[in-house]
């Protein structure tokens, strides 16, 4: 499903973000990537969404080899991946409903289906009744949940969540994790990055620890102690 083979990423000559990272994620797996900030977690995610290109090494996701990927195919790849960005990346001029609906609009889903699906997903993330709000009217936690709703509304085969609990109180953080687990049960591969030790240790999932751009450990039912 997801394969990184000796991937190295250098942003410039002096700094090495990732060094010879190799990892393999099976379909329907739930993987947590942990590590201090600046360790290279976000770089991995950026490589997976083809926001960045690896300096060397091979990346294959869902059968697509990134090396031979044409520009035209990048949007098609990204539609298969749902991403919860650390900084949300919501469209500022669109309402909550429009932001979530946008993910469906760009792939050509009909209006009826959008009208049916979006409220259901907003309900799942606990944003019922806030459909018409603009992003600037929402709290950090609410913004995070809009981002999650947008990422899951297409029922992607892969879901990447970059610090999705960062802005949430423990109760809401767990709500979000439950949503991710539910999505995972339905068959979506989930890749989660987080700092939250409590969550990592309670989840008892595969944990990959990144330190200084390298994989420090990769355990099937891992724990995280910073």
């Amino acid at each position, binding site marked *: 499903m997801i394969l990184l083979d000796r991937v190295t990423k250098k942003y410039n000559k002096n700094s090495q973000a990732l060094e010879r990272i190799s990892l393999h994620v099976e379909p329907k797996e739930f993987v947590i990537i942990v590590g201090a900030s600046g360790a290279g977690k976000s770089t991995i995610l950026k490589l997976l*969404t*083809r*926001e*960045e*290109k*690896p*300096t*060397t090494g091979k990346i294959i996701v869902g059968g697509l080899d990134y090396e031979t990927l044409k*520009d035209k195919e*990048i*949007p*098609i*790849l*990204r*539609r298969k*991946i749902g*991403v919860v*960005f650390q900084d949300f*990346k*919501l*469209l*500022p*001029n669109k309402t909550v409903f429009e932001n979530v609906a*946008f*993910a469906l*609009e*760009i*792939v*050509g889903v*009909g*209006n009826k289906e959008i009208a049916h699906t979006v409220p259901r997903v907003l309900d799942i993330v606990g944003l019922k009744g806030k459909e018409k709000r603009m992003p600037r009217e929402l709290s950090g936690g609410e913004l995070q949940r809009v981002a999650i709703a*947008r990422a899951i509304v297409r029922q992607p085969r892969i879901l990447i969540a970059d610090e999705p609990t960062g802005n949430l109180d423990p109760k809401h953080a767990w709500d979000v994790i439950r949503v991710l687990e539910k999505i995972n049960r339905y068959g979506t591969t989930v890749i989660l990055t987080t700092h939250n030790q409590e969550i990592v240790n309670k989840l008892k999932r595969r944990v990959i620890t990144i330190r200084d751009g390298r994989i420090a450990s990769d355990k099937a039912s891992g724990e995280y102690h910073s």
Partner: protein
Amino acid sequence: MKIRHRLIMFRRIVKAGLLNFIRNAWLGLAAIAVMVITLTIILFSIIANSTFTYTITQITDKIDISVYLKDDVTAKKRDQLIDDLKNLDSIREVNYVSKDEALEKYKEQNQGNLDLLLAISQTDNPLPASLQIKPQDPNNIEPIKQYLEQKDIQALQSDETSYSGDRKTAIDKITSATSFIGQAGAVSVLVFAFISMLIIFNTIQMAIFNRRSEITIMRLLGASTSYIRGPFIVESVIYGIVSGVISIFIVHTLFSISARAFGASSLGILDIEFANRYFADNFWKFLGLQLGVGILIGSISALIATRRYLKFKTSK
């Protein structure tokens, strides 16, 4: 299914463009202002050019008519022709200029040119006798033309009828002046159109620059190039349409004001009445032109301005 999909996408692009236009009205104002100025100037140049041309035709029409007679036309035939012409309602006056008189006139006109005088004195007077006709109504010489073009009358003529007479030089000067004005006008329109295209392009690019993060987000969510670019182009096309309508409204207003102020009078070489009528007669054509140019400039600018934000990272 594919057509339905495309239709859905097209509708969404247009809708998004319309929404963007409404939500970014202030940013678009600058682009519209520049576009209005360009389109107004282009339209004015076209009308001014046509008016000059019209004025030239008017002057050409207002002049005397010369009918050149063959040398072998008998005095009887000639007098008959003069009588016939005088009987025409549309002719005010007919004057006969004999070959000798023509030669005298020619010598007078070319006093300084000794070579020419020498040459002509050595030949058997090559100048034809002619009839100088003054029309009753300078604006209506068509009946005279028709009469002179009859076969048996044509048979008497040595050269083609001249409708310019001795004002020819003056007319030639005006014509060359107007063609110069026309060319200069065309060049300045082109230069101005180019400069304002740069300004419009910059304005649209600025508007797009303000929303570059939006483009990036759409890109990350997997939106196709046309789906991201489409609304921007729709928005710029709306700028073009709005500018086209405003510019034609401005020109229309200016013409109706000037027509009221100057009445049917002419301002030098510019015939206001004609310009006004010409504008009114071609209103729809002009509206189409303004819209077309506006839409073209707008969409090309948006196309180029969005390019850089749509590129995928290629550096490793």
